[in-house]
């Protein structure tokens, strides 16, 4: 039974069992935390969690401020594990630069790491995109839930492996392809600028292939060269930013398609995603060498 169906029953308390959880993968954990946070707001005191004492799940839920609402014991959930305390979590509804700047500054203060130039720009553009496009007026998502969630994890380099900065931004909005498709179909001028293949796909309506093509188009075509006013310049700049790093990687998952690219790849990769992904998840994986090794 789904959580929502259980919560529809009055007085039912849903208990989430994390006792068997051994590993929490970043992208999935961000999505879980996003939905859990929303459900705890809409159904206060109706969701509880069971975790092994001092487990990673208990520590993570404490670290991200959900443990008390889920009834998890304070003493059994203090975040101490390196894999937990290295995570940062931000959420909001607006394109706010200050929390992003403070997060990046905290990484800059570390002896080993210089954030790559342009990171603040692509992150604030990601939040701007959420604000402007993810939740269209009159949509299904209530205003209080029109949020973005940001997760970051910093891992120091060691002698045996490079360091790594992982950042994910998630929203539960309409998805990139839906936004782009609506804008394309609303403008004959923009439609005329597309190639025959995409025009044919658009005429066919919803299809996995169309989802793939639209996502790739949104990321790889600059508004200035195409005249398309979809998600601004932000998505192509996210790709350009990663291509400008030595070893970074960008993943964008939206609707029924997943895009990835890295400087090591000569071509980007866009595959279908089944089942459809709820909203849009953008992930930057930025490996780096320690400053003293890099210079």
């Amino acid at each position: 039974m789904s959580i929502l169906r259980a919560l529809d029953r009055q007085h039912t308390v849903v208990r989430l069992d994390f006792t068997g959880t051994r590993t929490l993968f970043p992208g999935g954990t961000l999505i879980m935390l996003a939905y859990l946070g929303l459900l705890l707001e809409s159904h206060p005191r109706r969701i509880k969690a069971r975790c092994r004492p001092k487990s990673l799940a208990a520590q993570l839920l404490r670290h991200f401020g959900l443990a008390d609402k889920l009834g998890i014991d304070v003493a059994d959930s203090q975040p101490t594990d390196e894999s937990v305390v290295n995570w940062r979590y931000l959420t909001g509804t607006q394109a706010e630069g200050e929390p992003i700047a403070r997060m990046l500054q905290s990484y800059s203060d570390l002896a080993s790491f210089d954030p790559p130039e342009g990171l603040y720009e692509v992150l604030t553009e990601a939040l701007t995109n959420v604000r402007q496009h993810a939740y269209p007026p009159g949509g299904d998502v209530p205003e209080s839930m029109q949020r973005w969630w940001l997760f970051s994890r910093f891992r120091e380099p060691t002698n045996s492996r490079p360091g790594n900065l992982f950042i994910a931004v998630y929203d539960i909005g309409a998805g990139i392809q839906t936004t782009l498709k609506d804008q394309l179909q609303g403008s004959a001028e923009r439609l005329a600028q597309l190639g025959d293949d995409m025009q044919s796909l658009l005429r066919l309506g919803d299809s996995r292939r169309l989802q793939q093509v639209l996502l790739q188009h949104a990321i790889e075509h600059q508004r200035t060269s195409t005249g398309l006013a979809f998600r601004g310049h932000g998505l192509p700049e996210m790709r350009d930013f990663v291509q400008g790093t030595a070893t970074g990687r960008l993943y964008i998952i939206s609707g029924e398609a997943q895009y990835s690219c890295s400087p090591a790849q000569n071509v980007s990769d866009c595959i279908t995603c089944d089942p459809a992904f709820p909203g849009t998840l953008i992930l930057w994986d930025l490996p780096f060498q320690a400053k003293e090794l890099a210079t």
Partner: protein
Amino acid sequence: MTTKLISIAKDFSPFPAGRYLTDGPFPGEAFRDQVLLPALKAHSDVTVDLDGTNGYGSSFLEEAFGGLVRKGGYSLADLKRRLHIKSERQSYEVRIWNYIADAVH
């Protein structure tokens, strides 16, 4: 002839982000309407210093500077004469003038 130096970090915010007023606390539209357009109206030459912030997303720059053409009614030639960009990152200056040129077309 009067000149005005605007530091975005000091005169507006060290945390610029977003395009429209509804996007957040320090978007490009607010910088353009509250700081840049009044300066262009009052002074013959305006220099915008971009240093001192964490950076600028394209939405901020496009709305702040491309918007001078769309909303302020300035021509590219007039802005070329009167608006000066100062930045340690030369790419910003190139992008700003591209946004202004695109807004003209």
